[in-house]
């Protein structure tokens, strides 16, 4: 099984959807996430949500889902692009229970809000924090950056 096969299946089911294929992932529009993941789970046997994370591209954020199919032994990488002024995406925890805590972690580290999540709190960092440590623009007074190394010469 390959990404392109999954892409064809998605195209057949949702002809109007703008799905983009990158070498390692499928990028789908944010609004279609719940529909597509429901389809992938029920008809293409991607029943395991392996990982939810995000990537900070500075001008936008990517939310990354790794879906695994035990039947086909295939891992699909699904991406959703969110803009910085609206960091919200639909929660998939209603489909996979494992997404619950993974989404909490993504919220904790990147500040992406998952709409309709059952319990969207910080999972590891103290509740009092207001910033999100894995963002590129993260700064704090007691945060000590690593000094520039001169390599072996220095």
């Amino acid at each position, binding site marked *: 099984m390959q990404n392109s096969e999954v892409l064809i299946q998605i195209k057949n089911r949702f002809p109007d959807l703008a799905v983009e294929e990158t070498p390692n992932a499928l990028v789908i529009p944010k609004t279609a996430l719940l529909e597509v993941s429901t389809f992938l789970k029920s008809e293409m046997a991607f029943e395991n949500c392996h990982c939810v994370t995000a990537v900070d591209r500075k001008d936008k954020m990517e939310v990354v889902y790794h879906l695994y199919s035990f039947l086909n032994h295939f891992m699909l990488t699904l991406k959703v692009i969110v803009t910085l002024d609206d960091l919200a995406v639909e929660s998939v925890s209603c489909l996979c229970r494992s997404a619950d805590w993974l989404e909490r972690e993504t919220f904790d580290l990147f500040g992406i809000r998952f709409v309709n999540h059952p319990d969207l709190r910080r999972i*590891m*960092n*103290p509740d009092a924090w207001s910033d999100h*440590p894995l963002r590129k623009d*993260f700064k704090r007074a007691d*945060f*000590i950056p*690593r*000094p520039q190394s001169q390599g072996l010469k220095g």
Partner: protein
Amino acid sequence: MAINEQIPGERIIEKFPGGEIILTKSEDLMKWAKGSSLWPLTFGLSCCAIEMMATGASRFDIDRIGSGVFRGSPRQCDVMIVAGTICVKMGDCLKKLYAQMPEPKYVIAMGNCAIGGGIFYHDTYSVVKGTEELGVPVDVYVAGCPPRPENLLHGIMKLQEKIKNAKQRSPNTDKK
């Protein structure tokens, strides 16, 4: 028995020939007893805890110096071996546990993380840069990443030395 016979409380307890009378000061005797039964708190925070467990096991045998009684409650402990990385969230817990320990209490910072952040000094948002940063006074620093069990045993023996040579009744009271 000879008068210069080696006895455990050497330099503190004087033993008379015949072995039926010993002479000492009550304070010295208390210090000796205190140093010889330092009960540690089971407080392993990360990989240093593995070395602490190895120290407790038969090969290195922490029981030889009377510190093998790892307790699960801070109220029964004398020494807190901070073995590992202190995260920000654990910091509050550490302070609470330290406050719950009865006086006299001692702290051993085991490993580079507990001393000053170690490899987590740079580029980390979630690690406290050492035990002293939390306002918990440290008696003995054991360096290493992680320290070998011999190193920890040496640290405990240094603490025993400190207790036996202390001027005040508790080394912690004069620090505050």
